[in-house]
């Protein structure tokens, strides 16, 4: 139940973060001076970092070099392809080859690895984490957020006026109109998260208490098919199936390519997808992000994808070095600059100011600042369910138009029950 409260307070709390971040510049400098000087020339043991976001591997390696130049301490960055991270992490932990610092996602993943997480509550750098943005085990702080990310309807502002699409009717009408013009109104794509994971987040996030709802769903006490937000959501899915290109035919690459060339008006995507638009000349300036207009929803979904954690199997020397590095990362000017400029994260710490944001990240940042966000309930779905259960059921729905929205929901309930058992 603590989690539920946490989730809800996230909405208001995130507002606080951003305001603090926006006006916190002078304080930052002093904070950096205090925190960054922590290492004071003492040679620390070499540490290793293993993390899931391939895209930041190179900047991180670069940063490790800078860190060594500044402090004389060594940090080695290991690497794994995006899909293989978890499996390699588990295998390494199993053979006592674990990294000193690694990354975990919220929810079942963090739960499974709980016994490896070091309590960081007393560290200086965690004090700056925006309220409720930390990873907690009971009341201990065990993880520091990478940054915030958000998803919603990413639109081309030459084709879409966000104020025109506010509910199921206007949404459906828009899809029909686009279809008549030979364009695709909204594109999902075949990858499990882009097909179902993210879009299904909305009805969950709109529940009074999303985590409690998930809990009840796991126990079979409630059903999606009986819940109004889901019923309406299923109608959205029916509209997408009827009036938009079959997502099964579309890959992430083609989805973003169609979008960038004006063949698709909207995609259900996150701010991370902006990098996919970079090769398409200056198209990027035409995009924006708006809420998925389900049941009056006017907020985009914002959350934290991964957290830095310190392996508690590491010896005391290593743990010390790991904390020193994290402290440097989150409080020194060099570290903070790397987070926003090189990792391109939207910061989730109050002492870090957002960098030059692309339009989508800007939208996420603004929503966070103004508190117009709904949470990422999908992090709390049972482990593996999106790829292995929800996606197949959704593929069936998109391939067989005789399946009604209602039957689809029943099917989702059925596979959910199986996966949660």
């Amino acid at each position, binding site marked *: 139940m603590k989690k539920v409260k946490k989730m809800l307070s996230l909405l208001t709390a995130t507002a606080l973060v951003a305001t603090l971040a926006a006006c916190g510049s002078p304080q930052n400098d002093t904070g950096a001076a205090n925190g960054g000087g922590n290492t004071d020339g003492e040679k620390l043991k070499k540490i290793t970092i293993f993390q899931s976001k391939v895209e930041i591997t190179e900047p991180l390696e670069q940063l490790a070099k800078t860190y060594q130049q500044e402090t004389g301490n060594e940090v080695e960055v290991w690497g794994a392809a995006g899909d293989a991270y978890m499996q390699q992490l*588990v295998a390494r*932990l199993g053979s006592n080859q674990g990294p000193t610092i690694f990354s975990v996602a919220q929810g079942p993943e963090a739960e499974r690895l709980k016994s490896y997480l070091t309590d960081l509550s007393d560290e200086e750098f965690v004090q700056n984490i925006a309220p409720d943005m930390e990873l907690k085990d009971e009341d201990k702080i065990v993880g520091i957020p990478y940054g915030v990310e958000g998803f919603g309807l990413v639109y081309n502002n030459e084709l879409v006026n966000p104020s025109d699409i506010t509910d199921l009717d206007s949404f459906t009408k828009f899809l029909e109109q686009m279809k008549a013009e030979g364009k695709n109104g909204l594109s999902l794509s*075949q990858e*499990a998260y882009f097909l179902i994971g993210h879009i299904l987040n909305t009805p969950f996030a709109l529940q009074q208490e999303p985590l409690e709802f998930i809990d009840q769903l796991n126990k079979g006490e409630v059903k999606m098919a009986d819940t109004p937000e889901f019923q309406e959501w299923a109608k959205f899915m029916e509209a997408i199936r009827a009036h938009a290109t079959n997502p099964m035919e579309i890959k992430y690459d083609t989805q973003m390519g169609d979008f960038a060339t004006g063949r698709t008006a909207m995609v259900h995507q996150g701010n991370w997808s902006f990098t996919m638009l970079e090769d398409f000349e200056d198209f990027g300036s035409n995009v924006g992000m708006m809420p998925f207009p389900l049941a009056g929803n006017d907020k985009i979904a914002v959350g934290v994808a991964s957290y830095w954690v310190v392996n508690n199997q590491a010896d005391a020397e290593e743990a010390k070095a790991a904390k020193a590095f994290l402290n440097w990362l989150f409080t020194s000017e060099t570290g903070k600059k790397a987070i926003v400029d090189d990792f391109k994260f939207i910061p989730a710490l109050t002492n870090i100011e957002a960098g030059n944001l692309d339009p989508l990240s800007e939208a996420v940042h603004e929503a966070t600042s103004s508190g117009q966000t709904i949470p990422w309930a999908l992090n709390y779905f049972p*482990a*593996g369910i999106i790829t292995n259960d929800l996606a*197949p059921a959704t593929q069936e729905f998109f391939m067989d138009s005789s399946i009604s929205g209602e039957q689809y929901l029943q099917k989702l309930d059925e596979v959910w029950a199986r*996966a949660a058992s």
Partner: protein
Amino acid sequence: MHRKDKAWFALFTVPLLFIFSTVVIIPFIIGIIYSFVNWDGIPANPKVFVGLDNYVQLFQDTRFLMSAWHTVQFTLLALILVNVLGLAFALLVTTKLRSRNAARTMFFMPNLIGGLILGYIWQFIFTDAFRNMGEMTGWGGIFFNWLLHPQFALYALVVVFAWQLAGYTMIIYIAGIQGIPDELMEAAKVDGANMGQRLRKIVFPLLMPSFTICLFLTLSGAFKIYDVNLSLTKGGPNNATEMFAMNIFNEIFAYGNYGLGQAKAIIFFLIVAGLTLTQVIVTKRREVQM
């Protein structure tokens, strides 16, 4: 056996057996032990002994049983296609054709690439290239997006697998064909045997060891198929192409049911071992000793 022979036997076999045991046999036995345990695969988390529960549970897992059925279908088709192609290629490139060397290299090349990229390229072929070809030729019945059709998605896997593996078996068939003494073929020619007769009466019987090997390699490769499965169809559409290995892998790494996954792997192993050993024994019987 004499003592001296025993010593030689040990000297020749023990080094490899030692390595093999530490790398394969012992881990496999540990794996069997884990199949009686309820555990999520995270070393620090509790392991609870549950006896045969995992084995009971897997037989109620309809999805696992379905994946078994897909794997059997896939394997049978793959077995035929891979070996027919591999043998045909081998026969072609051991003729006196001028292009044989180039062809031999080209047939083998698909074997050299793997992983995600391969899946992406073939996805493109089945999705976009097939649509274009369908429009051009008007044969919409053959050229449509195979990956969206449950049965054809399975055929697509067979095609890609055969494309990759045909060159592999070709190599082994070539080695076999070259082992056939030229005198034998020349003599047959002189006696007036035509191409078909020579193949049937000389080449095929003498190729029996190659058949045994190739059938076995394809069989074990097809049963264990994972990479192509993941990169081409991800088990879809709607789980229609989820194979054994993928099901097991997901059980272990996605759902975190390590013990159950191991139990599935053991059952899988027993079934496959039973089938393939029968196959090996059957074909071995037909081998001709020189």
